[in-house]
C-alpha cells in the first residue's frame, strides 16, 4: 500500500471479496526529519500516513516494512551502475521483480500471506493447465504490464492485481463511493527516489563521484563539443548537448569506455533491430524458434511488429518490420501477443 488510490482500492476490493488482508507499505529510503528534500511523492511520510488511514478505514492491520537496505542494494545500485555504463535503466521493473515480488513476498509468507496484491494495472489469467498468463491492464492508458515482464511463473502465482480489470476512472469512482481518504489524490509520476527528476545527482551520490565528461562526436568520429558526463544523457535526447548546428542533433549512442556521445540527425536514430539480454519468458520456457510479436521498447511506446529469434539461452535478436526511433540500451523490450505479455528483456 503506497498510499495512492490504486493500491488502496486494490486492498479495498480484496477486503470486500472476503479475503483476510494485511496492509504492508515499504519504506525504501531514510525519511527522518531533516531529510525532507530527499524524498518525493511516492512512499513519502505523507504517503505512509495515507496508507495507514486507508487501512484503518478498511479495518485491516497495517505495517510499514523497512526495506531500505535491499532497495539500495538492488534497485538504486543497479540504477547508478546502468547510467554509468551508458544505459538508461527502468528502476520500477527491478523494484517489481526483485523487491515487491521477491523480498516482500518472502516477508509476507512469514505472516502466512500466500499472495501479494498490488495496485498495478495488469491482469493475470490462469489457464486450464495452471499456467499463469500476464495481460495488459484493461485501461490502456494506465497499463503497467511493461514493468512486470520479468516476473516468473512462481512470482505470478503469488501475485494479484485487483484493479487490473478496471479503468482509472472506475478505481476513483469506487474509492469515492467508499469515502476512501485518497480517492482524489493525484497520481504519482516520477521515479519515487528521484522526486525532483535530477537523475544525475542520484547517480553521482550513489557512485560517490561524478562520472567524467568526454567528447561529443558525429558518426564519423569528428569532435563537435564536450559534455559533463554520460549519465546525463539517454539515446534520443536533444537537450543539454549545447551544440550549434543547422539541424537538430540527437544522442545516437553512448560509449562508456571512452565517455563519448555520438550524435546525429533524427533519421540516424532509426533502428531496424536490437539484441535483448536476460530475457524472461512468462510461460517459463523460450519458444522453439523464431516468433513474431509486437515489441514495446519503452513505456508508452506503441509496439512495433517484429521477429524475435532466440540466440542463446536468455538472449534474443529482435528485427522490426519498420524502423524504430531511439532503441535505448537499458530500457526493456517487452514482447506482446495482442494484450498478452509473452516475455521481455533488457535492450543491449
Amino acid at each position, binding site marked *: 500500500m503506497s498510499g495512492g488510490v490504486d493500491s488502496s482500492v486494490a486492498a479495498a476490493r480484496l477486503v470486500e471479496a472476503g479475503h483476510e488482508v494485511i496492509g504492508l507499505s515499504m*519504506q525504501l529510503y531514510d525519511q527522518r526529519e531533516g531529510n525532507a528534500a530527499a524524498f518525493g511523492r511516492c512512499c513519502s511520510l505523507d504517503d505512509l500516513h495515507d496508507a495507514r488511514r486507508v487501512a484503518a478505514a478498511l479495518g485491516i492491520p497495517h505495517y*510499514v516494512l*523497512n526495506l531500505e537496505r535491499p532497495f539500495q542494494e538492488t534497485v538504486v545500485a543497479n540504477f547508478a551502475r546502468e547510467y554509468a555504463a551508458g544505459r538508461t535503466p527502468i528502476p520500477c521493473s527491478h523494484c517489481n521483480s526483485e523487491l515487491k515480488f*521477491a523480498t516482500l513476498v*518472502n516477508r509476507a509468507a*512469514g*505472516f502466512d500471506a500466500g499472495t501479494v496484491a498490488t495496485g498495478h494495472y495488469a491482469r493475470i489469467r490462469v489457464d486450464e493447465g495452471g499456467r499463469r498468463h500476464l495481460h495488459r491492464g484493461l485501461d490502456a492508458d494506465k497499463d503497467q504490464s511493461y514493468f512486470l515482464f*520479468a516476473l516468473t511463473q512462481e512470482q505470478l502465482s503469488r501475485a494479484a492485481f485487483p484493479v487490473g480489470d478496471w479503468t482509472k476512472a472506475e478505481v476513483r469512482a469506487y474509492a469515492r463511493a467508499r469515502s476512501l481518504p485518497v480517492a482524489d489524490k493525484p497520481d504519482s509520476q516520477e521515479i519515487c527516489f528521484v522526486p525532483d527528476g535530477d537523475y544525475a545527482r542520484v547517480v553521482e551520490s550513489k557512485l560517490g563521484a561524478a562520472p567524467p565528461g568526454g567528447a561529443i562526436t558525429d558518426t564519423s568520429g569528428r569532435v563537435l563539443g564536450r559534455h559533463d558526463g554520460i549519465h546525463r544523457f539517454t539515446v534520443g535526447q536533444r537537450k543539454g548537448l549545447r551544440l550549434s548546428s543547422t539541424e537538430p542533433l540527437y544522442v545516437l549512442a553512448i560509449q562508456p569506455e571512452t565517455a563519448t556521445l555520438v550524435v546525429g540527425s533524427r533519421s540516424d536514430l532509426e533502428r531496424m533491430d536490437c539484441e535483448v539480454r536476460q530475457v*524472461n519468458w512468462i510461460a517459463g520456457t523460450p519458444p522453439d524458434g523464431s516468433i513474431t510479436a509486437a515489441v514495446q521498447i519503452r513505456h508508452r511506446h506503441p509496439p512495433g511488429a517484429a521477429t524475435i529469434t532466440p540466440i542463446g539461452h536468455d538472449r534474443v535478436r529482435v528485427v522490426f518490420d519498420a524502423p524504430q526511433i531511439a532503441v535505448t540500451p537499458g530500457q526493456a523490450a517487452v514482447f506482446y501477443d495482442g494484450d498478452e505479455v509473452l516475455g521481455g528483456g533488457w535492450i543491449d
Partner: protein
Amino acid sequence: MRIYFDHNATTPLHPAALEATTRALRETFGNASSVHTFGQQAKAVLDEARARVAALIGAEPAEVVFTAGGTEADNFAIRGAAEALESRGRRHVVTSQIEHEAILNTCRALERRGWRVTWVPPTQAGVVEPDAVAAALDDETAIVSIMHANNETGVVQPIAAIAEAAHRVGALMHTDAVQSAGKIPVDVRELGVDLLSVSAHKIGGPKGAGALWIRRGVRIAPILTGGRHERNRRAGTENVPAIAGFGVAAEIARTGLPEHAVQVSALRDRLERGVLAAVSGAHVNGEGAPRVPNTSNISFDRVEAESLLIGLDLEGIAVSTGSACSSGTLEPSHVLRAMRLPQGRTQSAIRFSLGTTNTEAEVDRLLAVLPRLVEKLRSLTRVPAAR
C-alpha cells in the same frame, strides 16, 4: 484476547487513576492559580498528587514540578541546567550512548549551540560504569545525565556512584527514572542526584503528565516562560485531571511495589526461561547486569525482528523492538549497537516488557506461539527473482 507485553512503551490506565482523572475532568475544572473556591479545589487536587508523586521517589512535595511528561522533564533538566550554568563557564555535558532520545536529542541541540558533549559507551552488558563517566568529567562539566533504568534492556545503572563522581567536579547530576519508577525502589536521597524525571503513563497513569524533581537549593532556568505556575518553574495552566491520575498511579505504584516486583519478575523469569528453553539461538541482551523486573530483551539468531514483531501482532501479542522511527518502521536499536552487539543480534532483538495485569496464561500463550513463528521465519527461503 490481545496480549500486551509492551509496558515500557506505555501502560494501561489503572482503574483508580482513570477514576481520579475523570472525577477531576467532571468536577475540578478550576484553574489552580485562581483565588476563588474553584481554584482552591484544583490546587488541592494538585497538592495531593504532588505529595503522592514525591512519596514515590522519596522527595519533598515542594521539590516536584509537574510537566507534560517525561520528555519535557528531560528537556527541562538539561536545557534548564545548561542555561543556569552557562554563564559560569561550564559548557560540557556528560551523558551515555544508551539514553532515551529525549536526552540524546536535547544534548545534540546543546552541541549545536557550541557545547561539548561526551557520550559515554556502556559495557557489553549495557552498564554505564562510574569509572567511565568519571574519566569524562572535568571542571567545565555542567551536567551529568545518566538514565536510571534503560528502556530497551531494563539494565539498572549505578546512579549513586556516578552522582558522587559528578559532584566531585561540581556538576549537577540528572537521572531519567521514567523506566525505573514503580518497578524498583527509587529514592532521590539514596541515588544522590539533583534532578530526576518521571512520567505518569509508564506507571498506570494517563498520558500528558510527568514531573521533574529538583533538589531543594538547586536552581535551574525554566524552559517554558509565562505565568507563575509551579512556583515560577514551569509556566502553563496545570493539567489537573492528568496530574490527579498521576498522583493516584504513583500512590498505587509505591504501596504495591514490593508485591508487584515479585509478581512481575516471576512472570518475566517464566517468559525468559521458557523462551530460552524452547527456541535455539536465543540470547538475552543485558544478561548478567542488574535489571528491572519486568523487561526482557531477547535476540533470535537468523530472524528479522521486524517480521517477528508483525507475526506476533497478527497472533494478538504486542511486543516491541529497537526504536520506532518517524514512519513507524524499525531500525536497529541504538542501545544494542552501543553495547557493541553484532549486527545479527541488534537486528533480531525483541523487547518483552511486562506489567502487573499480565498473567501466567498470557506468558504461556506466547511460549506456545513464539517457537513455531521463529522456526517459520528461519525456514523461509527467498523467492527466486528472474533477474
